[in-house]
């Protein structure tokens, strides 16, 4: 009898149970740093819609974009993050973030299917702005490693959420629904762009 699945399941459960105490601590320290980093993208609606749009567009484009875009984004985000950490100013960060929602939403809304390398460049360009916004907060974090892990994981989970939403293209009216999501994301981006100027 093959006991490997049982061992693996028990291992996963054991690991999950053993680390519950690590998350009981909130506020300062390692868990507080992770929680702060994790919540940072989630508290910014402009971050949220853009991250979801990356996953959505990737799902819309299909393989291999469905994983290339969510992999490209965090890797390039580190460049912007590193600039933010080092205090290198990047002009128009908030405008760039708002534009990311507009452009990526429009890509989905109009079902734009560029070559993979062009899609990756578009995503990477906007990733720098998002990374810079996160990176400027990193030096103030209670635990920088935990903080960076937190916001990278949150960013990735938002991508996965976008991918999950994008998978509805397989439904009967799924493509229309996904394009409608793209329209909503673009409109949100316009709001974020206009709102600070109003």
């Amino acid at each position, binding site marked *: 009898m093959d006991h490997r699945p049982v061992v*693996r399941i028990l291992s*996963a459960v054991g690991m999950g149970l053993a680390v519950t105490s690590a998350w009981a*601590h909130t506020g300062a320290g390692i868990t507080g740093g992770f929680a702060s980093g994790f919540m940072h993208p989630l508290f910014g609606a402009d971050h949220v819609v853009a991250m979801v749009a990356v996953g959505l567009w990737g799902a819309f484009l299909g393989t291999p974009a469905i994983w290339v875009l969510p992999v490209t984004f965090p890797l390039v985000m580190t460049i912007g993050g590193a600039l933010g950490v*080092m205090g290198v100013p990047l002009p128009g960060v908030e405008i760039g973030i708002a534009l990311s929602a507009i452009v990526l939403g429009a890509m989905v809304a109009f079902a734009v299917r560029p070559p993979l390398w062009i899609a990756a460049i578009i995503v990477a360009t906007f990733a720098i702005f998002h990374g810079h916004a996160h990176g400027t907060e990193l030096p103030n974090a*209670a635990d*920088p490693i935990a903080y*960076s892990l937190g916001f990278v994981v949150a960013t*990735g989970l938002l991508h996965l959420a976008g991918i999950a939403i994008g998978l509805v293209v397989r439904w009967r009216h799924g493509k229309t629904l996904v394009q409608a999501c793209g329209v909503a994301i673009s409109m949100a981006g316009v709001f974020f762009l206009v709102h600070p100027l109003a």
Partner: protein
Amino acid sequence: MKRAVRLTVAAALALASVDASAHGSVKGLGTFFSGFIHPLLEPSHLVGLIAMALLIGPRWESVRRAELCFIVAVLLGGVWAAFGPPLATDTALMAGAALIGLAVVVARPLPVVFYAVAACFVGLGIGIGSRPDPSPGAAPWILLAGSCLGAVVWFANMSQLVHAMRKPWMHILVRVFGSWVTASSILVLALVVSGNASSRRPTTDRPPTVNPVDLSDLRRN
């Protein structure tokens, strides 16, 4: 080797479940178990473990000797922590994790020696970085032993979990996780290079030390 891993995992689960099943007040994990979960609570160690698991898990059958290298390296690192001078390994571990994460993203077969070297690097970093605070009695030794055993057990668990992810979309997920490891590691390295590390948690100068965890204090906070 598989039987040994299973027995170790079973023992770890039996030991690790004490805290989760407690009712009423919990006084703390105790010295050994504090050390046992230390690799999970020390961010640089956790990142190193995850990176190695993501690297070795998908090719476990062909590179499982790297696990042995990891075990030996952790033990050697533990010996250094016990008898050698203090040495901060956070930065080195993050740099190693960044490279390992990239290797996971690329997902190309690499020479076996790469896996062995990576395992030794991470294992040594974790072992050396598990140096306990000096205190009288046997507590530092117990703490260190728990940390080293914990590192081995958690790594075995993680790599087997990754190894169990056989479906194509799971392989993609592994690459995505690898990108997360690289991204977070590079950001921290940028922080170190820029010299803007928070004064509350220096990542370069002072080597991290292991202390027994008092859960009752954590829950009060």
